[in-house]
């Protein structure tokens, strides 16, 4: 009970700040929290990255193994993206099969990589129709401080950028880098009482009416979008978010994802 009251007071506090154009942690509406990315943190993975955005902390591991292609794309590699909201990361997460929010996060992370064409799937073919590289992107959320979405997407691309195809381990020639040809970046905005803010903290996320994630590529074009949450958005709001998301993605890419 008292927990709920505290939560209620907290919401009021954030809402009142927002009306004055301020945020809990002193950021401007378009400002991200501090981002740190460390790569190659897991030796057993073919690629890996630890991403922190403020309090949020995820580790992404990329495992790459030979496998069978899908029948309808016999000459293309396979991407499989998983994300679990394990109970270690938040008092509100529960053990068990992934629920709809975890599945949505995984699928939007996946689409960011896939639809941007970041991975050249045709170069992941070993023997057409028989053997291709399976790229497993596993996102392990360790601490939920809000905006897991962007941390997950950043971690996925950072891990891929440092990953190698373990050909020698499977007697398939020499190891090589993963065939990357773009660097998509996801930027997530929330709408709170009509205002738009980037990179929501956990508290901001909890009171937001809706989220919009916009993934854009090196050319500044859109690769994927996902509206999540029950508040509608106007065309103006959407166009505004798209514009700043593309700019912000450029900044993040240039600062953190230089190949």
């Amino acid at each position, binding site marked *: 009970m008292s927990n709920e009251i505290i939560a209620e007071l907290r919401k009021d506090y954030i809402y009142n700040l927002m009306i004055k154009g301020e945020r809990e942690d002193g950021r401007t509406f378009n400002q991200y929290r501090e981002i740190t990315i460390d790569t190659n943190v897991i030796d057993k993975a073919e690629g890996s990255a630890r991403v922190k955005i403020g309090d949020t902390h995820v580790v992404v591991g990329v495992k790459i193994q030979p496998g069978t292609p899908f029948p309808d794309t016999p000459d293309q590699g396979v991407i499989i993206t998983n994300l679990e909201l394990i109970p270690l990361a938040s008092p509100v997460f529960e053990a068990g099969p992934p629920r709809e*929010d975890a599945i949505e996060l995984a699928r939007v992370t996946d689409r960011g990589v896939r639809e941007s064409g970041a991975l050249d799937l045709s170069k992941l073919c070993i023997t057409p129709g028989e053997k291709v590289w399976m790229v497993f992107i596993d996102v392990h959320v360790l601490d939920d401080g809000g905006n897991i979405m962007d941390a997950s997407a950043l971690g996925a691309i950072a891990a891929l950028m440092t990953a190698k195809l373990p050909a020698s381990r499977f007697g398939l020639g020499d190891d090589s880098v993963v065939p990357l040809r773009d660097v998509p970046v996801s930027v997530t905005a929330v709408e709170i009482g009509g205002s738009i803010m980037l990179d929501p903290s956990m508290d901001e996320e909890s009171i937001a009416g809706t989220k919009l994630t916009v993934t854009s*590529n090196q050319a500044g074009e859109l*690769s*994927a979008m996902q509206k999540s949450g*029950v508040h509608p958005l*106007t065309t103006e709001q*959407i166009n505004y978010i798209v514009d700043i998301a593309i700019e912000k993605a450029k900044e993040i890419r240039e600062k953190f994802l230089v190949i």
Partner: protein
Amino acid sequence: MSKPEKLIADGIRLDGRKPDELRPIKIKVGVLNRADGSCYFEFGGNKVIAAVYGPREVHPRHMQKSTSAVVRYRYNMASFSVEERKRPGPDRRSIEVSKVSREALEPVIFQEYFPRSAIDIFVEILQADAGTRTAGINAASIALADAGIPMKSLVSACAVGKVDDTLVLDLNKDEDNYGQADMPIAMTPDGNITLLQMDGHLSRDEFREGLEMAKKGCTAIYEMQKSALMEKYSSQIEGDNSE
């Protein structure tokens, strides 16, 4: 079908449509006896049925909300709805589609009228042909009205895509398979966007243009939804008068 050389020739799509033209739509309201509201919706080759139950009791009870109804949405593809038989039961895709479809409809439902109760929306895809989620939302929106659930408005949905570098309305299966972008949209009649997903490749300008095209498509669908409901309503009135 393997990738055709061209998906648009002389401004006309392979199925004969112009770029901004919707596929044929067929709507039947109140097609089920057991459900409180229902709708059969054909959208090109898509055949979907939506049913609404509620407001009704919530099981299990800990899912109740004390100040509003819970809205639940189950999008389900019949095993025989697609070329390769689909294993029965929910998969990751259908769980995501159910979530965003529910969120597309929640804004228009007066949930606060029915605390502690549930409004259940079931959408069955009997035949799939690109655009099942938008077909489902269109059907569900009508089924909610048919069930007498108080709503601020209907919700209408369709997709915009890009094929052969051209923006087109309402992708069919081949355009979806071989196109460059797909963007499903749902909106209210006053232009509020309640569902927005995109994947593929769109420039900022194409996105803006596509959004406007989608809005026109939704407006056209909205008129058909209204007509279908009117028709059922007026035939009932007539039926009542003729007694």
